[in-house]
C-alpha cells in the first residue's frame, strides 16, 4: 500500500504489512527503514479501506448473530480503531465476566489485528481471564501497608473457610479468590473487595459476617 525502495539493491515494491519501523526487502532480504511520513500514509490508506468496508457492513441485509454480533457492537462503538484493542477487551470482560476463545478469534477478524496480538494482550493483563469465574469475585489487597497490617492472615482464613486456594473457584461456583496489588486504601489495611464493594479495617472475625451477605 505504500511504495518502499531498498537502499541496498534499489528494488521498489508496494508494502502492505503491519510493521511500523522496518520492513524486509523481498529481493535481497535487507532491512529497510520506514519513515514516519510513510507510516502515516500507511495508516491513512488502511483507515480508508476500513471505512469502505464499514459501508459494506452497514448495507449488509442481515444482522450478525451470536458472538459475532456481540463483538461487532463493541467494535463499532470504538470506531474500528485498532489502538483501542485493550479498551474493547475491558468492555467484553465486564459484560461477560470472561473471554471465551471464540470471542478472541472473532475480535481478531473484525478489528483486523493479528491473532497473536489479541492473545498476548488477553494473557498479559491481570483483569482478563480466559476461563470462567465464580458468581462473586473476592479480591484481597496484598500491598505493602496491608501486608504489614496483616492481610496474609485474612487470605489464610478465606482460603481455609472456602476450601480453595488463591486464583481458584469454589466447587459450587459461588466465590473466586484473587489477590490484587494495591487497591489504594492503604491507610485502612487490610482491605478486601467483593464485587466492587469495599470492606476495610478487617479483623479475623469479620470474614464470616461479610461472606454470608453474598449468595
Amino acid at each position, binding site marked *: 500500500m505504500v511504495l518502499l525502495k531498498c537502499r541496498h539493491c534499489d528494488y521498489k515494491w508496494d508494502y*502492505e*504489512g*503491519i*510493521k511500523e*519501523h*522496518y520492513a*524486509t526487502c523481498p529481493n535481497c*532480504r*535487507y*532491512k529497510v*527503514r520506514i519513515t514516519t511520513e510513510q507510516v502515516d500514509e500507511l495508516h491513512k490508506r488502511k483507515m480508508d479501506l476500513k471505512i469502505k468496508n464499514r459501508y459494506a457492513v452497514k448495507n449488509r441485509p442481515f444482522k450478525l448473530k451470536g458472538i459475532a454480533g456481540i463483538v461487532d457492537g463493541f467494535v463499532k462503538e470504538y470506531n474500528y480503531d485498532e489502538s483501542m484493542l485493550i479498551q474493547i477487551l475491558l468492555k467484553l470482560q465486564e459484560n461477560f465476566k470472561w473471554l471465551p476463545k471464540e470471542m478472541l*478469534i472473532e475480535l481478531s477478524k473484525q478489528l483486523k489485528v*493479528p*491473532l*497473536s*496480538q489479541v*492473545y*498476548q494482550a488477553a*494473557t*498479559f*493483563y491481570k483483569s482478563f481471564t*480466559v*476461563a470462567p469465574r465464580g458468581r462473586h469475585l473476592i479480591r484481597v489487597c496484598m500491598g505493602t501497608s496491608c501486608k504489614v497490617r496483616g492481610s496474609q492472615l485474612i487470605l489464610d482464613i478465606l482460603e481455609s473457610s472456602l476450601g480453595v486456594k488463591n486464583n481458584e473457584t469454589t466447587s459450587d461456583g459461588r466465590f473466586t479468590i484473587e489477590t490484587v496489588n494495591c487497591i489504594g486504601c492503604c491507610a485502612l489495611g487490610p482491605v478486601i473487595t467483593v464485587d466492587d464493594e469495599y470492606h476495610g479495617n478487617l479483623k479475623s472475625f469479620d470474614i464470616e459476617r461479610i461472606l454470608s451477605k453474598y449468595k
Partner: protein
Amino acid sequence: MVNSITIEIDGKKIKVKEGITILEAANQLNIDIPNLCHHEELEPFGACRICSVEIERKGRTRIVAACCYPIEEGLKVKTRSEKIDRIRKAILELAAVTSGENVTGEMRSLASEYNADLSKFASRITFKPTKCILCGLCVRRCTEATWDSVIGFVGRGVERQIVEFPEKKDICAVCTYCHDVCPTGRIKSTGADPSFPSLDDVLAGRE
C-alpha cells in the same frame, strides 16, 4: 541528507553515517559483539542484553545494549572489560534457568567463550526446562513471513512462553524461518513434528 559522524570503538576511530546503532557500526569495523536476540533482517528487540557494552559520554560511563543505542557525535565505546565479561557470564548463567543446560548452537559457543557454568542455578529450577530463552526471534521471523504469525507469546513474567495457535496451523508454510534463527537449538524442525506446545494444552493446564 545523512551526516557523517566520528565515533570511537575500542580505541579505533571510525566515520559512519548517522542513524545506525552501535552494533551495526561495530560490524563495519569487524569487531564482534555477541548477541542472541538480534538478526540483521529484523528490528532490534533488546531482550537478551548480552550485547551490553560500556559507553562514555560527557564524562559519565553507562552500560547500554549495543543493538538499540543510536550513535551520536563523540561517543566512546568499550566492548570488552572485566565488568562487561562478568555481566555477560552472569546473563548466560541466568538464561540457563529457563532453558536448562542442554543447549546447542549460538548459546553453547558463547557459554564456552565466557566460561559460563550453565548448571550453576540448576537447583533453583522448579519446572521442566524448555530449552527456550524467550529471545523472540522465531515469533518475529514468523510475523515477517506470514504477516499474521502461527506462533506467539502468551503470559507475563515467569509464565511467558511461546505457543502455537491451532487456528493458524494451516497457514504454516513450512518455510524453516524459525528453525534457522533459533540460538539454542530448541526448534528441531517445522511441519509434522510440532516444536511448540499448543495453546489449548497450555490454557487447559496440561502443559
